[in-house]
């Protein structure tokens, strides 16, 4: 395949995937407001468009047209760079998520932007870089709330990344690959082949850690509004604030995509007779189900205290994940021999 075709194929896929992701981010904010409203016997946004459907677009326009304020005493360069450092890792991870079975396009194979053989680690590498945006943004704002939010976020993200990393090891042992496509194909053929049934403990620890990793309620310490105003992006406004916002929601979608690939069979249909439905529909359905779960627990639980969060991460989740690895490894060894 020629270089030009490769690049064209990549550009087309990037454009489509990024379009879908950014649209999902926009409508994730809408869905969150709506679902939370229904849980609280309200109606949510109703004014812009029918049932408020154009609300995210109005919000986006508003944010992009607002004045960009840089507080006095802030470190201007890092203040400007931090939102971008936060946003890029959140978006770049979608490059390795397989959204469909391989199909031929322009003489190449579509279905993933690029199928790295270390795809999973690639996502985690960039997710860990996302913490820089938060910490630097908090530090550069020259504000005590932002600094505290950044510090909390740093501690939280580092701790819970460990949990995420440990809870996926069981899946890796089962599928014997780090490529997300290989992991998906390993779960082929009906929902009873999903890793969820083999690795229920890993799924639970992964989901809890993912909630903490994306700074969502009930683990939204870095932006606990009742104590830290808005945490690390207290001083941000306009477009830069929008970047942080986008990054948070893109991260949510990314960890949900990853959970559906790792535990729920990714683009595979839940049963053989449903194979006529295209793969990306299944991936989207599974991802949105997990996103609904995110909103659901936000609507249910109050925020935990910071020391409780740390204690839970280090003293409960990590040991549980380690025991899970041990049990899985022994089980895989016995089955293979």
């Amino acid at each position, binding site marked *: 395949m020629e270089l030009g075709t490769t690049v064209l194929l990549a550009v087309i896929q990037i454009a489509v995937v990024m379009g879908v992701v950014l649209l999902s981010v926009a409508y994730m904010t809408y869905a969150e407001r709506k*679902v939370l*409203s*229904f*849980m*609280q*016997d*309200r*109606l949510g946004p*109703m004014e812009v468009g029918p049932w408020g459907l154009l609300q995210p677009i109005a919000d986006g326009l508003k944010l992009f047209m607002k004045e960009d304020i840089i507080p006095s005493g802030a470190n201007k360069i890092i203040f400007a760079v931090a939102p971008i450092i936060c946003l890029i890792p959140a978006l770049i991870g979608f490059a390795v998520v397989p959204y469909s079975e391989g199909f031929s396009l322009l003489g190449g194979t579509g279905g993933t932007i690029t199928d790295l053989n270390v795809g999973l680690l690639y996502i985690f590498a960039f997710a860990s870089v996302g913490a820089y945006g938060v910490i630097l943004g908090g530090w550069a704002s020259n504000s005590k709330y932002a600094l505290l939010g950044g510090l909390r976020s740093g501690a939280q993200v580092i701790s819970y990344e460990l949990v995420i990393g440990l809870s996926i090891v069981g899946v890796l042992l089962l599928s014997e690959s780090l490529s997300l496509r290989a992991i998906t194909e390993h779960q082929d053929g009906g929902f009873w082949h999903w890793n969820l049934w083999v690795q229920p403990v890993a799924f639970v620890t992964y989901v809890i850690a993912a909630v903490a990793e994306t700074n969502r309620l009930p683990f939204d310490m870095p932006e606990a509004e009742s104590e830290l105003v808005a945490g690390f992006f207290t001083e941000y406004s306009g477009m830069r604030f929008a970047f942080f916002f986008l990054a948070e929601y893109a991260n949510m979608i990314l960890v949900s995509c990853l959970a559906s690939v790792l535990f729920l069979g990714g683009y595979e249909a839940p049963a053989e007779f449903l194979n006529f439905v295209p793969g990306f529909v299944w991936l989207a359905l599974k991802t949105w189900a997990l996103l609904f779960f995110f909103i*659901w*627990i936000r*609507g*249910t*639980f109050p925020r935990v205290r910071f020391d409780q969060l740390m204690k839970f991460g280090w003293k409960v989740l990590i040991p549980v994940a380690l025991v899970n690895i041990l049990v899985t490894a022994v089980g895989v060894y016995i089955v293979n021999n």
Partner: protein
Amino acid sequence: MGLIRSIFMTELLMGMKLVFKQMFKPYCTLQYPHVRHDIPDGYRGLMSLLRYEDGSERCVGCSLCEAACPSNCIKVVSDEVPGQPLVRYAREYYLDITRCVFCGFCTEACPVDALAMTKVYEASVFDRRDLMFDKRKLYELGEQHLADGKAYLIAHNMDDGTLFPKEGLGDNRYSFPPVDLGEGERPVTVGLTREALEMELSKQ
């Protein structure tokens, strides 16, 4: 048992189940600008001044409302009706809504039921000076919300007499029946009609 419960997170799941059920309950909010609450008759909204049915002003300029007001937001300038000694009216009447606490004491104090509270609660303006209601604004409000004012007087002041003088007098209210000076059938106005007042003011 407790350990098993905490491992399976039973209590958390119970909470989540409750929240999930709540999603399917009907909403209990009003879409405010499109749908409004039914306001009870005794609601204490913006103040207004009322007229008799022939258009003459009820207010006799007695300043009792000014005396009753706990936040000193009412200012009455009383004057004689020109050419009618012994008959007084409020030449000027100011009510500072920014200070008003909406207690309704002035309407209780008013002996002629000239003051009534309407159901208007959207008092926001772009210029704070517009919240300094003068006599004209108060009478305008009274004209616009006459039914609300009457309903308020019936509900809040328990008054059914002076408001409708021909149907009998109330027993908890002073009454100022129209003064008959012997000239013609028509009852002589107490106070001035709006047009007469404006003419009066323009002369000065």
